[in-house]
């Protein structure tokens, strides 16, 4: 059974989804989804431990050996992201019933869990696969179910947000498809490890260069890098709270993993950065992303939208780390991938509690919330501190590695800019904290804390934020191993 773990990671939620359609019952489908998600979490941890021991796991689907067959190939980088996706998927599901009871009609709850499980399957599939076209298929599976999930929001603007995401996401995925097709044209293979080997001699041809360009733009669309980010604020803002928490913590992270896989493993850091000057493109875009989106976040009155813009800034930090192309830079990027998912997941879960009790996430409605919902407000403050990068939270670990990486290369201005970004984060977090604690509540509203089923997952993620902030040897250690693996080029 242990040999089949890589494929069971994908198959268990895939089997649970149609069972949810057949069961049709609100609570039973939730229990089934919960069982599936927590089983996947357990399996992904086992896989991570195995990979830390042995290097990588390879699984041939259908018994056909790679490179003729589709292969699932899990090394340290994938395993790390798999554990992250499974953790978020399982934790957010605990939170779901109370939250969607207020936001989605009861008859549709079983369909919600089905779409959630399908999106979960897609994300796990993208991360585990070792075949480029299989990646496209799973990418579309997760994207299409996300479009459906986002459109379930109460506000009618959720429909337009989902439509806009559909158009931009499909264009991005089709660009990736074109890139993969051009790579197939030049090398005759779709297996990632084989592509890395066979692409070497033909990297100078125009086809390979165009393939790189198409793949780069497609992946940037999916991970919402600065100019191609327009779908993200609306999609995160108008989707149901559960969906925002799930997607904010997983979808863009998995797309960043895809970027790492294509740029470092298949094309090679040499080609991408030395010949194609990817650094001169990514670093400025990342810096612009950090500053413009953080500044826009300061002026938002809808807190979900503010956190969405903050997510864009954090993606900028991750891409900055990747753009630095050093071991420390890549470690910073990979560890921030993990940390940001934890932070943002917790923050959106806290906001979901606010949305449930208040019915809105506008700043002026949250006046004096510190007295009415003390636990949730404190959770928000903790998450905010992590966004700023205060020591003892995971945000500090990421910023530390990022600044270290910039200083290693002698780029003092870059380090200063990273710290300036933290200042902007401080401004927009303080805005909310001031309203929560230092303004009187509108009427004598009673204490009305979020239900326990919603608080437990939120505190789970926040406990992880503080734990991995205090002792980062596990997360940063694995990230460093992943960075070394990626820079070494070998799969």
């Amino acid at each position: 059974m242990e040999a089949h773990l890589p494929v069971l990671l994908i198959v268990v939620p895939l089997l649970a989804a149609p069972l949810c359609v057949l069961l049709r019952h609100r609570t039973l489908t939730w229990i089934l989804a919960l069982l599936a998600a927590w089983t996947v979490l357990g399996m992904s941890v086992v896989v991570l431990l195995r990979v830390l021991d042995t290097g990588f796991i390879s699984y041939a689907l259908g018994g056909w050996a790679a490179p003729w067959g589709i292969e699932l190939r899990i090394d340290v980088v994938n395993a790390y992201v798999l554990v992250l996706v499974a953790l978020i998927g399982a934790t957010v599901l605990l939170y779901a019933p109370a939250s969607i009871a207020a936001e989605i009609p009861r008859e549709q709850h079983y369909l919600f869990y089905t779409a959630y499980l399908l999106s979960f399957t897609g994300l796990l599939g993208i991360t585990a696969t070792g075949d480029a076209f299989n990646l496209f298929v799973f990418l579309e599976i997760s994207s299409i179910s996300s479009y459906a999930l986002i459109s379930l929001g109460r506000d009618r603007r959720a429909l337009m947000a989902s439509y806009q995401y559909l158009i931009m996401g499909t264009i991005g995925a089709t660009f990736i498809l074109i890139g993969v097709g051009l790579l197939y044209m030049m090398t005759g293979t779709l297996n990632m490890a084989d592509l890395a080997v066979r692409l070497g001699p033909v990297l100078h041809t125009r086809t390979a260069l165009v393939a790189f360009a198409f793949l780069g733009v497609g992946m940037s669309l999916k991970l919402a890098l600065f100019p191609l980010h327009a779908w993200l604020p609306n999609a995160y803002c108008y989707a149901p709270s559960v969906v925002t928490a799930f997607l904010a913590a997983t979808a863009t992270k998995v797309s960043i993993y895809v970027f790492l896989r294509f740029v470092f493993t298949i094309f090679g850091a040499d080609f991408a950065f030395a010949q194609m000057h990817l650094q001169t493109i990514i670093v400025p875009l990342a810096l612009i992303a950090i500053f413009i989106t953080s500044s826009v976040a300061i002026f938002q009155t809808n807190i979900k939208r503010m956190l969405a813009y903050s997510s864009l800034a954090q993606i900028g930090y991750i891409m900055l780390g990747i753009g630095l192309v050093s071991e420390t830079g890549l470690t910073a990027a990979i560890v921030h991938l993990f940390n940001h998912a934890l932070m943002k997941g917790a923050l959106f879960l806290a906001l979901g509690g606010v949305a449930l009790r208040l019915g809105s996430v506008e700043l002026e409605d949250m006046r004096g919330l510190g007295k009415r919902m003390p636990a949730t407000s404190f959770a928000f403050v903790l998450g905010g501190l992590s966004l700023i990068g205060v020591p003892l939270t995971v945000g500090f670990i990421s910023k530390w590695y990022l600044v270290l990486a910039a200083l290693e290369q002698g780029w003092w201005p870059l380090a200063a800019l990273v710290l300036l970004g933290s200042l902007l984060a401080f401004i927009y977090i303080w805005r909310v904290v001031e309203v929560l604690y230092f303004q009187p509540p509108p009427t004598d509203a009673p204490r009305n804390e979020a239900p326990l089923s919603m608080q437990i997952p939120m505190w789970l993620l926040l406990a992880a934020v503080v734990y991995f902030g205090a002792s980062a040897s596990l997360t940063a250690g694995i990230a460093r191993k992943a960075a070394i693996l990626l820079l070494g080029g070998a799969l």
Partner: protein
Amino acid sequence: MNLIAGLFNYWVVIFLMMAGFYNVIARGNLIKKLIGLNIFQTSVFLLYISMGKKEGGTAPIVAGADAVYSNPLPHVLILTAIVVGVATTAVGLALVMRIKEAYGSIEEDEIHQRDGEA
């Protein structure tokens, strides 16, 4: 001359791709955008299939000992991609129907206007 006639299939792919992409960007009607997306995806299918054809090759169905077959792998990839395209179009059309119900219009500028008023 060979640049056009020899690479004819790629010219068709480029034409369809740009026509579809232009439709997605320039049209305000939501359904026309979806049609543009479909044309864009169709051009990618043509790219894959034309790449799989071998000179003198016949359809990749077993037909005797020494027949020359076209590469069957792109055909399989395109079948999958077509299904993905159908699913995306279905979700897109369902969204457009819900938008029509909620806003009363499927023109993008009218929808933004009604959002601004609300």
